[in-house]
Structure formats: structure tokens, C-alpha cells
């Protein structure tokens, strides 16, 4: 199916469901084309390609609501599928808050190009991609004789969504994304295996780092871990690497969702305009960032997106309220979707910050653990390095950090100057004081 075929099908589905008795209908028609190559031992270990078509239909009938997904897209099949879906919907209990979003919330017209689609998609030959990934694996494997295995990966994806609502909304997003990564395993002198990886995700092929950088970075991260051990349980300064900040930030975002507020399972309920973090934390949600991994002019409900400051110098300014929970909570809808997250960045590098602090643990990975959104309590496993001044003294593992999100974020004392560019959360490294680490 080409673009026009997909538009016609989405419109037909909407018309058919209305004709069969639905009060309102939402249709999402998604097409994804993807390719993934994995290289190991100088050979392509895995080559995967596929094209996926998914149809989602939201049905609203007499204040009842249901969602139906099908990958079978022939009209003859869909007629029966939609008829059955409507029958199912009628059996449900009424929910007076369910409806399509108010028309006034839809975006007015497309504005500037957000640069989310790379025309190089499908224009790079398979051989070029294979050469790139083979080269990356070779770089990783030959950096150091302690490296015993390396796997290099390359992937590309093209995503297209048509979104139509029976009360007038029509939208389309066409995006590409690219990824490159290397996973390496090293053996230390005691035959213990150590592993690490380095990945980069971008909207445009040309923005990917070089295979050399990815291959070498994965090796560097891995070899640094040799000799890991746990330290004595104690309170330390904690510096969190920029790529890992998302785990801690997730504790704030999970508490901002309308659903969590309604279910009384958010530790941030009733804290709007209150201090939930130190004044060092300012977080902005920016859906209009060019080439952003979560950029777009409308959200998953079709509502217009807006740039918003979520936390301003530690003060909580905004929740994430979709139209359904907005009605249930009696709150104005904002959006239920997080987009790209930017910070007020500091002026110092991680090395300068560590030198300033003097002594602490630099966390480079969180492993497992949990966050209790109702109470704000958390416990995460960590991997990283013990440092004194700007020098790494020893690699650490098998340690936990435990505490409460409100206390932890109040203990944020410094923000780095190094936004992580390969994620929708462009976090810098962060420095926290008085963090309890469990170890020996």
C-alpha cells in the first residue's frame, strides 16, 4: 500500500464504523519498515528486514469505549472485525468521560519542518551497511587483547502514521530513525568476564557517530570496569553519567501522569507549584526540537503540543494530563505524552565536577531495582567508579542506592554541561549529595 492507499483505507474504516453505529471514531494506521544487521566474528550473524502495517480503531458508542487492533487490512475482513468490535463495545459499562478530544485542542496547521525524516532511508545499499557494521565490529575486537568477543549492530527504521478522528482531526507523521552500537566482552586476568556497550540513536544517518567512535567507546567502557568490587556501605556523593539520568528522572515523570494522580498512586499529587527538587533542576518538555526523537505537532490523542517548563528551579509547574484524566480530575488537559526533555545546563564537565567534589561514586549504569510511585521510595542496583578528585580510583559493582525521590532530588547540588544527544532525554551529568550506597 502506498500513502494514498493508506489514507483511503483509514477514511473508509472511519466511515464504515460511523455508518455501523459508532458515535465517534478514531483511526490510527501505522506503517513501519525496518532493517537490522548484527555482525560477529567478522561475519553477519543476523540480518532482519520487515514491513509492518497496524490498524488501531478507537470506538465510542453511548459513552462506552474500546480499542481494536488488526494487522489484517482487507476490507472484507475489516467489516466483520468492526461489527464485532461495536458489539463488544456495547457490552461495556458507561464512562461519561470518554470521548474524542475537543476540536479546539487540535493543532491548527502544520508549521515548520521539524526535520524528522531522512531522505537517505532506503538509499544506502545493503553492502554499504554491512561494511559499516563489519568495520565497527573489527574496531572493537582489535582494540585490546583482553577483548574476547564483540557484536556490532546497525538498524534503520521508517515510521509513518496516519491519524484521523471523526470530529475533524487529520494528522500524519513520517519519521526515520537510525541506530548503531557495539557490545563487547573482555576477560580479566582471573578469567572473569566483563561486558559493556555503546549505542547511538539519531533521526538522520549523517548524525550517527563514526563506527570508530562507537567501537572504541564500547571498548573503553568495558575495560574500565576490570577489577570491579563493592565498597563499604556508606553515604557518598553521587555523580550520575548523562546517559543514565533518565532512570532517576523517570521517578519524577511517572508521578506526573494524570492516571497516577487519579489512581492516588503518585507521590507528587497536590505538589504543583511546590518545591520537589533543588533549585538546580529546571526541566523543559520541548516537542518542537528539530531532529528530536520525540518531536511532533500533535500527541497520541491528536492534541496540539506545546513547549512547557515542567520543573522550574525545583518548583513543579506542570503535570501530564490527557483529555480523559483531565475530565476525571477536573483539570485542564495539557498532554499525556512526554516529548524531548531539556535541562538548564551547567558550566562544568563531569571531570571538573568530580574534582570539585573530591570523593564519591560516579554511576555509569543502573541495574534492576524499583521505584514506588505511590510513596516515592526507590532502590536501584548501580555500577560505576569510586573517584577521588577527578581521578577514578576503582570500578565498583554489586551496590544499591536506596532512598526517597523527594529527598534525592532536593539533594541535587550540581548540573553538568554535557547533554546526552542520543536520547529524547538530553540530560547532563548530575551531582547529588548524601546518597546512601549499600555494599559490604
Amino acid at each position, binding site marked *: 500500500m502506498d500513502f494514498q492507499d493508506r489514507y483511503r483505507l483509514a477514511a473508509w474504516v472511519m466511515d464504515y464504523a460511523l455508518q455501523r453505529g459508532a458515535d465517534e471514531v478514531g483511526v490510527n494506521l501505522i506503517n513501519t519498515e525496518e532493517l537490522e544487521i548484527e555482525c560477529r566474528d567478522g561475519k553477519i550473524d543476523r540480518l532482519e528486514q520487515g514491513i509492518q502495517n497496524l490498524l488501531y480503531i478507537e470506538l465510542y458508542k453511548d459513552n462506552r469505549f474500546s*480499542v481494536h487492533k488488526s494487522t489484517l487490512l482487507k476490507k472484507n475482513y475489516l467489516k466483520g472485525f468492526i461489527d464485532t468490535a461495536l458489539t463488544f*463495545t456495547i457490552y461495556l459499562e458507561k464512562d461519561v468521560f*470518554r470521548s474524542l478530544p475537543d476540536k479546539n485542542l487540535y493543532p491548527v496547521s502544520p508549521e515548520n519542518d521539524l526535520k524528522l525524516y531522512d531522505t537517505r532511508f532506503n538509499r544506502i545499499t545493503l553492502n554499504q551497511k554491512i561494511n559499516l557494521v563489519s568495520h565497527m565490529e573489527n574496531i572493537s575486537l582489535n582494540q585490546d587483547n583482553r577483548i574476547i568477543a564483540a557484536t556490532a549492530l546497525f538498524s534503520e527504521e521508517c515510521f509513518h502514521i496516519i491519524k484521523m478522528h471523526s470530529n475533524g482531526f487529520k494528522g500524519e507523521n513520517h519519521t526515520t530513525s537510525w541506530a548503531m552500537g557495539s557490545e563487547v566482552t573482555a576477560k580479566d586476568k582471573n578469567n572473569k568476564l566483563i561486558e559493556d556497550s555503546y549505542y547511538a540513536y539519531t533521526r538522520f544517518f549523517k548524525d550517527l557517530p563514526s563506527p570508530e567512535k562507537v567501537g572504541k567507546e564500547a571498548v573503553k567502557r568495558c575495560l574500565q570496569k576490570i577489577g570491579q568490587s563493592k565498597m563499604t556501605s556508606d553515604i557518598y556523593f553521587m555523580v550520575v553519567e548523562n546517559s543514565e539520568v533518565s532512570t532517576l528522572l523517570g521517578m519524577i515523570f511517572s508521578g506526573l501522569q494524570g492516571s497516577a494522580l487519579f489512581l*492516588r498512586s503518585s507521590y507528587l499529587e497536590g505538589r504543583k507549584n511546590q518545591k520537589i527538587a533543588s533549585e538546580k533542576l529546571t526541566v523543559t518538555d520541548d516537542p518542537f526540537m528539530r531532529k528530536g526523537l520525540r518531536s511532533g505537532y500533535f500527541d497520541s490523542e491528536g492534541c496540539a503540543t506545546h513547549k512547557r517548563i515542567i520543573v522550574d528551579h525545583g518548583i513543579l509547574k506542570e503535570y501530564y494530563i490527557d483529555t480523559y484524566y483531565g475530565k476525571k480530575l477536573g483539570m485542564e488537559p495539557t498532554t499525556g505524552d512526554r516529548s524531548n526533555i531539556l535541562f538548564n545546563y551547567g558550566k562544568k564537565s563531569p571531570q571538573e565536577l568530580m574534582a570539585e567534589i573530591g570523593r564519591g561514586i560516579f554511576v555509569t549504569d543502573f*541495574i*534492576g531495582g524499583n521505584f514506588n510511585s505511590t510513596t516515592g521510595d526507590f532502590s536501584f542496583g548501580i555500577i560505576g567508579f569510586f573517584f577521588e578528585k577527578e581521578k577514578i580510583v576503582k570500578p565498583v559493582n554489586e551496590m544499591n542506592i536506596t532512598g526517597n525521590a523527594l529527598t534525592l532530588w532536593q539533594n541535587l547540588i550540581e548540573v553538568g554541561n554535557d547533554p546526552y544527544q542520543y536520547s529524547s532525554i538530553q540530560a547532563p551529568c548530575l551531582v547529588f549529595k548524601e546518597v546512601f550506597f*549499600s555494599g559490604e
Partner: protein
Amino acid sequence: MKKYFNLFGITEELVNKIISQALSRGGDYCDLFFQYRSTRNLHLEDNAINRLYNATDMGVGIRVIDQEQTGFSFTEDLTLTAMKKAASAAAAIAASKGSISRSDLKIQTFPNYYTISRTWDSVDIREKMPLLSTINNMVFSLDSRIIKCNVSLTDTESKVMIINSKGEVATDYRPLFGLKVVVTAEEKHRRETNMSALSGRYGFEYFKGDVLKEVSQKAVSRTVDLFKAVKPDGGEMEVVLAPGSSGILLHEAIGHGLEADFNRKKTSLFYNKMGEKVAKPFVSIVDDATWENARGSLNVDDEGTATEKTILVRDGVLVNYLHDRISAQHYGVQPTGNGRRQSFRYPPVPRMRNTYMFSGPHTPEEIIKSVTKGIYAETFSNGQVLIGAGDFTFYVKTGFLIEKGEITRPVKDINIIGNGPEVLKNVVMVGNDLKIDNGTWTCGKDAQGVPVSHGLPTVKVSSLTVGGI
């Protein structure tokens, strides 16, 4: 076989054309994984069953293997043209011009480990809805501190047919349900949330007797107990793992490391350790696809291989890896029926099914009495492991302090972290009370999720790092 051919609208002639296309550039082997899957999810929130999610999915995954290299593609369009295009994409991996002998299609037969009497497709949603409202009513009647209850029931039916270039045909009908009850309670302006869950390859007949009452009671007691819970001191201590869901320890600490692909790639800490002593003689561990109606059970794996009960550790000695076809060929052994995939959109890789430790010589009472100061860990979530280093972690959702040989106060919000081989060596007592957990466990690997289960008798680990205050 005919029933499945009709379901997917294919013929033997068409299958032969696809296989020929897939092997057009060479390759040693090819398989086609056809799948039809229907899923329904009913959701109760705010005392009303007001949400339904319903999905139908069908397609084929085409895989070509050339030595140890895999080419894979899929399509949801089961026409000859679309499948030939996908077969050509999968064929791109092959570079060795060769021809393999082909034979007529022959259906294989397998035992049935999930006999059911009422298929989910045959049950009207009006019959399912009272299950959710009954649980909701029970939850609110059990404790006045309950302020919110969410109940979700998901049922799935998957019909698969695997046809390979050797002419072998396997079919399987796989029912699965998952029930989750999430409860929030409030006491003196303090709130706590916890949950209970049930899952298995059962039909609708599963819901009889006290099933609903038990799942409701568990959700409520696990939640309100948290008001009494304390955070333990952090650090290394003795940990007693309760029977059942503690099996996640095996899944994370040893199971992933024994998946043969990691060993074939030399990235597992169990690489080249076959035959070595890894635990005390009273420790034996198995990955079992044959446990009746368990969530991870399979009649046949996703490569068409018969499943089995695969012993991994026998009397403390490592004896087996978990194999798919590629790793079995690499090691020169028979595949163990562990080739699994999330759906037709993914190639199979070695995965666990139901992983558990056999019962041992100790009673649960003597195990608890032997601990002066430690943790009794009962339910878990969020397990994770680093395959090479063996470092693993899991989060204790429900647990208790053990003080002077007695279970005393509940504990909360703790993470347990350790190293797989070290923890196995530190298993110093094994109870005689094996229990397989029936929770909604899904294992993630290579961005694919598959249903699994695990189990454990009461087990004492002499030292683990506990995250506390």
C-alpha cells in the same frame, strides 16, 4: 494440518514456492513460522469495566540459516507475492550456493501439556466481566483502607504452524491468560500500592472455587502489610527465598547464562564450564516445558522442535545448556526445544520456559530457624542480569525480617543484588517444598518478550547484598 492450511489460506504448492525462494541464494536450512493470534483485555477502573482492548494479528516469519548466520524477514500479507518478497529478503544472508534435499511435508505430533475445556474465543465477554467486578467487590469488602482497585484480565489464543525445509510440519494451539489486581490503600494520610497476579495456559474453566477470593486477598494483604513495613539495614546478609516466585533468582542468576547462544558467542560466564561443580550436591535445576498448564510450557518450540524437561544442574554439576537449532548444531547436540520468539515478527533464539530448582533435604522451618538476622523474600519484580559478569538484581515486593530464627516485621522497597555463580555456591540449604509460581512473568531478551514461569523450594543463601537504609 489442513485446518491450519485453511486458517492461513495457504497450500503445499505455495509453501514449496516460498521455501524455494528463501533458499534461492543457498543456505542450509529454512523455516516458515505462521501465526494467528487473538487477544482481548478487559479493564476495570473506578468500579466500572469500561475499557476493552481487542487485537487480531496474523503473518509469517521466514528464516534462512547459512551455517550460523541468520537471515530473517516477515510479512502480514499471506499472498504468494508478498511472501516471496519476504523470502528474498531473508535469503540475502546466504552466500553459499548449494542445494539441500527436499521431501514432502509431513506433520509431526507432540504431547499436549495444556489441555483445556473452554477456549477463550468461545467465551462471550459478558461472561468474563463478572470475574472483574467480583474481584473489585471483594477487594473493597476486605479492608476499609482500600481507596482504589484496578483489575485487568487478558486472554490470548495463538495458533502456530512451523514448516521447515526438511518437510517437517508442526502445529500448536497455545492458550494463555493473565489476571492482575492492583490495589491502593490509605492509612493516616499515607498511601501504599501493591498487586497480585495469576497466569497460565488454562481455559476459562480455571476460574472456579476460591480462585477469585485468593487473588483478591493476596492483593489486599500485600498492600496493607506495607503500612507496618520497615526498611532494613542495608548490606550483606543471609537471605531466605520463599517457595514460588523466588525462582526469579534462578532465572536471572543462572538461566540466562545457560542460554546456549551466549555461550556460542563466548559472552556467558558459563562458557566452557560444562561438567564443572557450580553448587552444593543437593542443588538440581531444570528448565521444563512440560509442567501442565504453566505459563512457560510449550508442546513444541517455535522452531518445530519437541520440548522436554532439560536438566541444567544435576546434583550441583552443570550438565546442559538451553539450545535452539543453531546452537545445537554448533555444539553437536540435539536441540532442547528452547527456540522461542515473541511473534512471527522475530527470529527464534534460546529462551527459558519454566525454570525451577528441585526440592532438597531441609524443612522450611529449620531453614528459617537457622537465620539470626536476615531477610525472608517472598515476592519479586524487575529482575535483570549482566550475562558476562553474572551480576544480577531483583526487587523484593513483599518480604519480612528474620530475627533470631523468627519471621518478624514486613520490609519494603528493597533491592537485592548479587553475582550468579557466587550466589549458586552460597545456596546452603534447600527446602522440601518446591512451588511453581503462577504470576504474569514475561522474560525480555533481544527486544523480545516471551511468557515464562519459575519456581523454587524455600532456599537459604548465606550472603547477598540487600539495599536498605
